[in-house]
């Protein structure tokens, strides 16, 4: 039996009622794996995806169209205080469609920390090894060598070498890549070995069905057991057209740490210890731009193939919690980040081909929160703590030092009052207290931790099996699970944890048959 992807425009106008063994909300890294595994186990399974179904042929490398197509709120989602922009995917394949293919396993010390301090059982490095290995095989993960390193990434390598700092090539899930450099706008050349290209077709081949353009509005539950999901079916223009009611004894939420938590909150799930939606981590990051005499053409080539880990360790409360990678933007993103406006702004944009850009991302310890507004929309609150702010400042200074070491003529930290330095001495003399929310543009691409796992229901929303502590049959399979931030890209962790937890969801569905 082969399943299918049903788009909003393909659905008849009336309400739809579906009976299934399991329903998965969200089709990104975690949702796609759960869908595949449940289907391969012979269960009838349906996925609900809020966004549309777009494929390689739809990705035209134009920012204004792809932001609208691939990102939540067209890339405009913000924290409630408007201090941090949160970029998240929307559509079949989720954020795996627009991410830059970075593949890092959950660090061993993080897994040990989760076991030691957060009561996560069965997820030690040894226990997770088979899941990581299987995912890396599925997604054809390979090292990005010097032969594919573009000039922006080469700046980072040169800086690391010159300073003697730790750095190295990253691993990616790409095959047949031509290095066009438009990864964050979806891959026109279908070279991303992601949920959209690899995992969901496997799920369909095993009989799963995906309903795109279908927004889950409520998880249905009674007497401590999940009973299904209600959704709004969207028609053309993304307006509500009809209802979808899926009756299922297993529900997997995998709609991101923001989407899943908001869905859970508007579903009135029991939350006796007040943990639901709390503990949000964002990996907040900001950028530094270096101007070079030589052209960089940072938009060409694979965007992120090298990393600096000189300031990245895993101790909670530690003083090395910054991950540094290149982060070049296409013109619209660059123009929005560059301070000022008018003729002087345009004049500054003329330096674009000569700019290299690095980002410092904080392995954060701030505990934000996701709630739902009166209209059900997610509200993201993230009051950044001082130690994270200090780490961000340290990271931006490190980015500046790296670029000066790589030969930058000058380096600019975009801020309400932009700061430009052209020597290490100037950098050392800099007062970095201006580095804080609302003063520097901060972006998050890795929300995590709003329905975290752990065996103690007083401190965790779901058990180490991924099943909700109070609602039987309800599983979580996305970045919501993580009790702390990872300090690196989460996609492999999400894929792998979904795979690791899937036997529990399968067993629950079978017991319910």
């Amino acid at each position, binding site marked *: 039996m082969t399943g299918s992807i049903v788009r909003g425009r393909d659905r008849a106008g009336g309400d739809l009622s579906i009976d299934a063994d399991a329903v998965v909300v969200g089709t990104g890294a975690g949702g796609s794996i759960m869908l595949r595994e449940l289907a391969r186990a012979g269960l009838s399974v349906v996925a609900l995806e809020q966004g549309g179904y777009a494929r390689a042929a739809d990705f035209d490398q134009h920012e204004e169209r792809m932001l609208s197509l691939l990102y939540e709120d067209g890339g405009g989602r*913000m924290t409630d205080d408007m201090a941090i922009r949160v970029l998240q995917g929307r559509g079949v394949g989720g954020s795996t469609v627009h991410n830059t293919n970075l593949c890092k396993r959950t660090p061993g010390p993080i897994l040990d920390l989760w076991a030691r301090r957060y009561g996560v059982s069965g997820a030690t490095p040894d226990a997770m090894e088979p899941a990581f290995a299987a995912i890396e095989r599925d997604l054809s993960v390979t090292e990005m060598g010097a032969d*594919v390193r573009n000039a922006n990434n080469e700046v980072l390598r040169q800086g690391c070498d010159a300073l003697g700092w730790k750095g190295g090539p990253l691993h990616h899930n*790409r095959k047949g890549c031509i*290095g*066009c450099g438009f990864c964050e706008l979806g891959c*026109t050349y279908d070279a991303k070995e992601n949920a959209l290209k690899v995992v969901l077709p496997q799920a369909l081949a095993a009989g799963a069905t995906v309903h795109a353009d279908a927004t889950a509005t409520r998880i249905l539950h009674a007497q401590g057991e999940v009973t299904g999901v209600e959704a709004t079916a969207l028609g053309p223009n993304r307006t509500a057209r009809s209802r979808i009611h899926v009756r299922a004894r297993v529900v997997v939420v995998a709609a991101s740490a923001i989407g899943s938590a908001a869905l859970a909150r508007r579903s009135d799930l029991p939350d006796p210890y007040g943990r639901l939606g709390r503990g949000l981590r964002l990996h907040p990051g900001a950028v530094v731009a270096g101007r070079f005499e030589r052209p960089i053409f940072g938009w060409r080539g694979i965007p992120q193939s090298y990393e600096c880990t000189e300031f990245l360790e895993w101790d909670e409360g530690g003083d090395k919690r910054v991950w540094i990678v290149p982060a070049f933007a296409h013109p619209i993103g660059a123009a929005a980040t560059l301070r000022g406006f008018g003729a002087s702004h345009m*004049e500054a944009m003329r330096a674009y081909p000569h700019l290299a850009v690095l980002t410092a991302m904080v392995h954060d310890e701030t505990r934000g929160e996701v709630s739902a507004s009166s209209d059900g929309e997610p509200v993201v609150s993230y009051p950044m703590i001082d130690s994270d702010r200090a780490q961000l400042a340290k990271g931006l200074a490190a980015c500046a030092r790296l670029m000066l070491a790589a030969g930058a003529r000058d380096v600019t930290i975009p801020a*309400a009052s932009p700061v430009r330095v052209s020597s290490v001495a100037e950098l050392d003399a800099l007062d970095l207290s201006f580095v804080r929310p*609302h003063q520097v*543009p901060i972006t998050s691409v890795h929300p995590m931790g709003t329905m975290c796992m752990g065996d103690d229901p007083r401190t965790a929303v779901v058990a180490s099996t991924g099943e909700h502590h109070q609602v039987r049959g309800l599983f979580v399979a996305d970045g919501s699970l993580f009790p702390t931030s990872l300090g690196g890209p989460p996609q492999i962790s999400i894929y792998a944890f979904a795979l690791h937890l899937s036997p529990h969801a399968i067993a629950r569905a079978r017991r319910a048959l």
Partner: protein
Amino acid sequence: MVALGAGVTLRMRGYPEPTRPLVALSTWQYAVVQHAARRIAALDASAITAGAPDPDQTDVAGFVDGWVARMNPRTRRDLLRFLVFVEQVAPLGCGYLGRFTRLDAAAQDQVLASIEGSSHALLRAGFEGLKALVFLGYYRDPRTWSVMGYDGPLLGRPESAPGGAAR
């Protein structure tokens, strides 16, 4: 309250009708975006000499109108409130009694700069949001890319020359 409402209503009159049908913005909101876009994406001397298109020629305000129609309701509400601030309140802070859209270019620059540099974080955030929308509308146009030496999408480019090697 009635008098206040009537006053606000009167102050939102007297705007030129757009040359195109609007899908999300009202006539006055469209005018504010159009005027703001002319200043935010103002051309520098080199661009003028080179004949680069201005924000009207790239229909920035029309683009923003379409974008706002697809915004989530909360963001749209915040943006439209911010436009009221730009048009009616911010000029007063700079000593101008007239609406933003009736000021000359230099005064409009002064008003926008005062918002960009405001001590109120939410006003600065509102400005950055409006600026992002304007640049979305402006730099989406391929005619603007030569300004910064950007060669545009690889897709459809006659002579493909990606910087990274094939993999």
